[in-house]
């Protein structure tokens, strides 16, 4: 099947069914995943996947449909259904299919690694086995894992609209991760580390992933709650990305328009300390969130959302941009099964100049968070309360493990209280974070 032709053909058929605007997004690719347990392969999964989504507009009314069944009869049914849904929908004056503005070559982004097909599956299996063994070798208290896995995927994205030639790109994804369990005298603690990358050769070595995960589990043995108090909170990259992710939602232009973000109406105002700059950049070579164009064919770019503490931009897809009277920022996130919404490309907290060790050495009394649990993050109000595990820091030194506590605060205050940002920016997928310190949060424990 030529998927470029298929996508184009769908938009032509939509026109014949009365659409005045239409686009078609196809994703097609393959996946492999391997899990091991106690030195043996536990499962191998392999699949070729495909799916297609249609946005059908008639007089600004949208009907949307998607399917994994690409047989001609099924596609005809779906088009009819889209037309029917468009009839009963309401006209949305700001909705439209935008012009495709992307250039079609993605080579400078380096998002496709041809070695996905040349590395034999047996090597990939060995990689996971090595990873698990490294966790076991790290300490004799590691005798079990909650899972050790490798997965890779290649996906080709094709987008066609009624008025332009189809555009496409292909990307690869590789990931290895380990969740060892440390056991001592009936106590069980889980550690985690993982490495997602665009290129196979960029993966952290399996033994490093296994031992890093094991260290995090061992470090937690003997953890106890601390007394309820106010103290500093330090996030390393792995836990730091979770607050970073929440800041993206708070800067989402659609949330701004709906008034569902605690940063509502604060454009060009100081919202954080001078240490915080948050950036979205869809064009970083070899990064997981890089792609030549977004879900609507808009070229990706670099946008600074918070510039040294000042809210400098919101992130938009075409609809929210039109509504706000501005331009898209190339942040339309979309799969074949969804209509576009605002989403991150590569979004990160910009690094500072201090080494992570020095960041910790400057903390008098606080918690280095190694794991976060639960939800408790309310973008609308800014209320933040999450379960946490970590290591207590006193006078710049690690004192011991802590668990069974929550850390709580208000996200606007958290932004304002970021007092130190490390130089160690590290990406886990689309989100990246260095080590950073929030001067004071409420820690609830005993």
């Amino acid at each position, binding site marked *: 099947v030529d998927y470029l032709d298929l996508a184009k053909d769908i938009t032509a058929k939509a026109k014949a069914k009365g659409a005045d605007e239409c686009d078609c997004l196809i994703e097609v690719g393959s996946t492999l995943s391997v899990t091991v347990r106690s030195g043996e392969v536990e499962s191998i999964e392999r699949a070729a996947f495909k799916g297609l989504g249609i946005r059908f507009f008639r007089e600004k009314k949208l009907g949307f449909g998607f399917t994994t069944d690409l047989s001609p009869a099924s596609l005809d049914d779906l088009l009819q259904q889209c037309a029917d849904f468009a009839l009963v*929908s309401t006209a949305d004056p700001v909705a439209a299919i935008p012009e495709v503005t992307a250039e079609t070559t993605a080579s400078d982004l380096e998002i496709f690694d041809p070695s996905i097909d040349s590395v034999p599956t047996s090597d990939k299996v060995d990689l996971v086995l090595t990873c698990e063994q490294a966790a076991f070798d790290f300490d004799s208290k590691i005798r079990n894992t909650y899972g050790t896995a490798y997965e890779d995927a290649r996906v080709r994205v094709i987008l066609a609209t009624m008025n332009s030639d189809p555009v496409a790109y292909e990307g690869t994804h590789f990931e290895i991760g380990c969740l060892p369990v440390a056991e001592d005298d009936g106590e069980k603690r889980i550690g985690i580390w993982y490495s997602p990358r665009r290129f196979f050769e960029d993966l952290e070595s399996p033994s490093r992933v296994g031992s890093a995960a094991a260290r995090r589990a061992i470090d937690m043995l003997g953890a106890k709650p601390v007394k309820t108090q106010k103290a500093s909170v330090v996030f390393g990259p792995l836990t730091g990305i979770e607050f970073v992710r929440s800041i993206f939602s708070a800067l989402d232009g659609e949330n701004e328009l709906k008034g569902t973000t605690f940063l509502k109406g604060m454009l060009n105002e100081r919202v954080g300390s001078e240490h915080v700059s948050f950036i979205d950049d869809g064009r970083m070579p070899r990064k997981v969130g890089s792609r030549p164009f977004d879900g609507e064919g808009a070229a990706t770019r670099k946008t600074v959302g918070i510039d040294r503490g000042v809210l400098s931009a919101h992130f938009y897809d075409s609809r929210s941009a039109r509504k706000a009277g501005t331009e898209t920022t190339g942040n339309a996130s979309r799969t074949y099964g969804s209509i576009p919404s605002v989403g991150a490309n590569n979004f990160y907290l910009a690094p500072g100049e201090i080494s992570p060790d020095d960041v910790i050495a400057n903390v008098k009394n606080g918690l280095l968070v190694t794991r976060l649990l*639960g939800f408790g993050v309310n973008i609308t109000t800014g209320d933040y309360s999450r379960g946490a595990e970590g290591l207590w820091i006193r006078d710049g030194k690690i004192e011991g493990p802590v668990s069974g506590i929550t850390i709580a605060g208000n996200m606007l205050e958290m932004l304002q209280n970021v007092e130190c940002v490390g130089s160690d920016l590290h990406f886990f997928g689309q989100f990246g974070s260095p080590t950073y310190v929030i001067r004071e949060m409420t820690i609830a424990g005993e």
Partner: protein
Amino acid sequence: VFPHKEDIQKALRAALSRGAEFAEVYLEKRIADTVRIEEQLVRESSRGVLAGAGIRAIIGDKIGYAYADGLDVESMIEAAGIAGEIAAAGKASEPVGLPPAESAKPYSMTRVFPLDVQAERKVEMAFRADASCRAYDQRITQAMVTLLDQDKHILIANSEGTHVTDRQILTTLRVVSIAESNGQRQRGFRSLSGHSGYELFEKESVEDVGQDASRQAITLLDAREAPAGAMVVVLGNGRGGVLLHEAIGHGFEGDFIRKKTSLFAGRMGEKVAVEGCTIVDDGTIPNARGSINIDDEGTPGERTVLVENGVLKGFIYDKLNARLMNTVSTGNGRRQAYKFMPVPRQTNTFMLEGEVPPKEIIASVDKGLYAKNIGGGQVDIASGNFVFEVTEGYTIEGGKVGSPVRGANLIGNGADVLMKIEMIGSDFAFEAGGGTCGKRGQAVPVMDGLPTIKISEITVGGTES
């Protein structure tokens, strides 16, 4: 809808061709419609079709899995070959001949099938929920309404001669309400869901659901910051059951038991909870969101007692983990869709009611937190530590429910909490909305239930010390 029996038999043979001991074909065709209202506009009216085949081949505890999108015979047999090749050992074996497909015995009857409801009517219902949500109070500034329905056909055939089909209807309404006053913004959420068609809304109208979302948002406008520290917590009936699902239920799932990663592993027959505490997982409750006529391996739903009067009585299993533990499946092998292998999952999980009137429970607390509504939660299976968001909570002072609080999290340990239950109420209820449980990247619909219970101590993670 699905390929013929002979072709399914061919796929099973292909999956067994490299020496697998067990092969299974899972076929699915799901039609899901969505109407979503935002800012008083239809943001989405859509049809989604998920059709495909998932094939599993097993040797010992090693699994080969492959899936194919679409329902064409060629892709299905090709996927079966791939699964078989992964689970390769020695000589091919022959599958048991398939009997004619048998329809699952339904616990959940449907009267008004979603596909028989006009799209126009779905849009109109969503707008009614939106209107009642906004009309509740002048301070409501936004409403977001999502009406979802699905009509799912599945077929499961395996090399042991299982050959069953089922049709599963699921209807859901979700409403988010935003209230604003004096620069304060709060969010309310309510859902209604069940394995039934549009007769679901005869029990509770779309307007009622919309208003309840707004009631929560307005209540929270007056809320103060939640207290921080360890205290007595009373969990409200119905929605409080989420804690049971997360903090206790997950630890009873057969994969965690076999792999000994659960803190309940190897504790059958031991006292794990206070006397009077009985916890059940039951997939056979008519029309409930967590119910299953058959699970995704073809095993009928069951009622499994997990804890009886404080004593650990049972775990929940899929076929693979059951076999490796020398027991049988309890009908808990579930999967999100054909793209996933089944794993042991809960269905409807709940604690049976006790005898204490809920008023007496509140009256017995001098100072504490009343967690009426609980949102999302997460548990660390190994340690049993959990965290939950309290979406509607109140202080308890001098035996009376006091002012609303916001931003509270509950943090504790599942095993610990079971021993700290001091009172069990006489007011059992299921949560009306049900939930969606995530495990190993797979989301499945579940439901929880609880009477009002008093727990002598849980840490509340607020900001007010």
